């Protein structure tokens, strides 16, 4: 079973990367850009057919390693 995980910085946490990328895009002549925030993305496949169990597994991975819960939030989505 396959999942995607997106990890984003919590609101109010400084995003130095986003700031620089925003400025650069503007300098490259891209107008109309309101906001851009950068995060991480994972594509995870587990050997597990029970969706609940599989999701729990992915959640465990996020909490144990992939996500820094102090400054990041995450979201899990099932892929087909």
């Amino acid at each position, binding site marked *: 079973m396959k999942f995607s995980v997106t990890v984003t910085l919590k609101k109010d946490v400084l995003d130095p990367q986003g700031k*620089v990328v925003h400025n*650069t895009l503007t300098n490259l002549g891209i107008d109309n850009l309101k906001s851009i925030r950068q995060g991480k993305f994972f594509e995870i496949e587990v050997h597990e057919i029970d969706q609940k169990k599989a999701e729990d597994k992915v959640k465990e991975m996020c909490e144990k390693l992939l996500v820094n819960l102090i400054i990041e939030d995450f979201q899990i989505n099932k892929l087909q």
Partner: protein
Amino acid sequence: MRSSVIVFPGSNCDRDIAVALEKMQFKNQMVWHKESKLPKTDLIVVPGGFSYGDYLRSGAIAGKSLIIDEVIKAAAAGCLVLGICNGFQILTETGLLKGTLLRNKNLKFINKDVNLIVSNNKTKFTSKYELNQILKINIAHNEGNYFTNPQHLEKLKKENLIAFKYCDEKGDINKDSNPNGAMENIAGIFNDKKNILGMMPHPERMIDKTISNSDGVNLFSSLIS
């Protein structure tokens, strides 16, 4: 011989390379990235550091700056271009050199003196070295893991476009002597016309025996001769 060092916000080896160039008798100028014209120059150096914090991808944002267009033009006209560390990353982002630099295989920043073997000494950058000479040069990077597609790799080998490879003290090129996971232990490459060199190791750190060694000197003396 005249040289120009391009300075980006976040460049931090710009002073180091300028010191080296001046010591080797180049007439050097610093060029701020916002400038739209290059001074008359025989050598352009894109220095190491963390241009724009290396945010997004190392070298990506610097690769879009104003001055880079000028560097591309100058390179096309045959001007010598040297990219060191972040400079190498920037040159790959602009397409002046092919391939890319991925994260080190251990996912850690690596700073140490490593052995390199000179793989081609018939170029303007390396003529003062012996072929297969073993150098000890400092590396300091997070993303030095050179990667390219199989066709290009073939070409690099066939056309002798590999400048340096990581090796051990005896010159053996193997997995153990590869600090960052680079394909074929590649530490530096040329473009087709061999007027552009990109390399991860820092020759400018090896020009003074009180501080390190002088294995970097011949790169600069090759250029100036």
